[in-house]
């Protein structure tokens, strides 16, 4: 089995003048190629820190990170579209930085915009778009550099509930169809279960791995989409188990 990303005994401490906090403590896990892994845990447990370390934005205090990728795509809670660029220009941002904004890639971006229903909004500025459309544009911007590992940091949590469900469904389906290796950080258990192949549950800070679930839906026929998963019995079973994991944590 080929792994795209591996963490070995990774710990991270943050320093301020007054104190030092351990955000994550001895985390080890692997992500297979094409696998979608979710990390859930209480808020403030170093979930996002793990993503920053994988992306190389932070260095681990201890341990080792092995990443076998050409490029990593990162998506945030807020879409972070640049308000002075129109949708099309926003989507070219990553390619520009990497000096890959050639004709061929530009055509590719235009095709992606069409695929995600943004062609008519190519020349629009972000302030003219709805929350769902903005997040889709952010996805195009992220996928334009053809990342082989996608890091999603609560990418849907700033959206209203309905948009969140439909965008989550859309994105989850895209990731699965295009076999993009993904690590999704969220505190939304249903989102994690419906989208992922595996869910890793973190403890409170300093985060350790509390449990891991391989998510398999045997009671599902046809293509697996997040929305369909939500309607199965297995879904409820996973939800209750993970909920209990997080709940027990609170009582302690």
């Amino acid at each position: 089995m080929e792994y795209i990303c591996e963490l070995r005994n990774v710990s991270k401490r943050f320093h301020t003048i007054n104190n030092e906090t351990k955000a994550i403590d001895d985390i080890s896990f692997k992500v297979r190629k094409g696998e979608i892994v979710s990390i859930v845990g209480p808020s403030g447990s170093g979930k996002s820190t793990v993503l920053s370390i994988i992306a190389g934005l932070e260095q681990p205090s201890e341990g080792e990170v092995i990443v076998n990728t050409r490029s990593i795509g990162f998506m945030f809670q807020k879409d972070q579209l640049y308000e002075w660029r129109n949708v099309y220009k926003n989507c070219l941002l990553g390619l520009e930085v990497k000096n890959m904004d050639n004709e061929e890639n530009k055509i590719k971006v235009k095709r992606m915009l069409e695929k995600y229903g943004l062609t008519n909004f190519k020349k629009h500025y972000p302030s003219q778009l709805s929350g769902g459309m903005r997040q889709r544009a952010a996805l195009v911007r992220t996928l334009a550099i053809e990342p082989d590992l996608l890091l999603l940091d609560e990418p849907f949590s700033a959206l209203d509930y309905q948009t969140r469900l439909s965008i989550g469904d859309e994105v989850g389906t895209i990731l699965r169809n295009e076999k993009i290796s993904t690590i999704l950080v969220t505190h939304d258990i249903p989102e994690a279960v419906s989208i992922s192949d595996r869910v890793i549950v973190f403890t409170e800070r300093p985060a350790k791995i509390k449990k891991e679930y391989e998510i398999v839906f045997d009671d599902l026929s046809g293509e697996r989409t997040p929305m369909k998963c939500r309607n199965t019995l297995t879904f409820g079973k996973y939800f209750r188990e993970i909920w209990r994991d997080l709940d027990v944590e609170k009582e302690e």
Partner: protein
Amino acid sequence: MLKRKNEQAAIISKEHEEYLRSINRERHFIRITQILIFIFGIIFWELAARKDLIDTFLTSSPGAILNLIVKFINDGSLFRHLFISTMETIGGFFAGTLGGLLIAILLWWFRRLALILEPYIVILNSLPKTALAPIIILWVGMGYSGIIATAASISIVVTIMTLYTGFNGVEKDKIILLKTFGANKFQILRKVIIPANIPNILSVIKVNIGLSWIGVIVGEFLVSKAGIGYLILYGSQTFKLDLVMMGVFVLGVIAAIMYFLSSWLEKKIIKY
């Protein structure tokens, strides 16, 4: 924009039509009142001067000012003075704005330098810069260069402060996003820091136009032999209030023109 207006016009309702008309009426009322205030002010001033209700030695009168303007236009000296002052202002404006921009970029780039220089910049900023004008003119020269340097000195510190604060105020995640694409520091400057601060830079430009005029007039008061500031000072020293008022009036016209130019520039650049 125009096209969209037409599209909307096709499906306009009666109520909406009435609403648009009321907005238009309000706008016209305000504009007409503004013009009337100006016209009545001038007429009142002129009448009061003719009926000796006010002392024209101190207040001059619109007619006298107009005559003087015509005279100055005919012998070409108005344009000469105006040209000199405007050029000095433009010079001081560009030196102050571009210099300030450059220094703000350097401070952003070398964070440690910014931290070291912070108290000096803060003190320089709260100091009334016109107090420095005599020193600057002595250092730089008693002519145009001294006046331009005075104008630049007035705007440069506030430019540095405003832009440096703006550069550091750019949302952290917007920068992190670029870093995830592997951007270097220069790319971060060019693709986020500067574009995110375009509205900031434009408002600095607006302020600096006014500040540069202050610098130029102060500089001309101190050393010059030509320019609007020179005319005003000369007029007041020889008790020719017509000349002083003409200078102020011309400055008002120029200020209005520059204000409209910068507003136009703002609309042209910021489309989002």
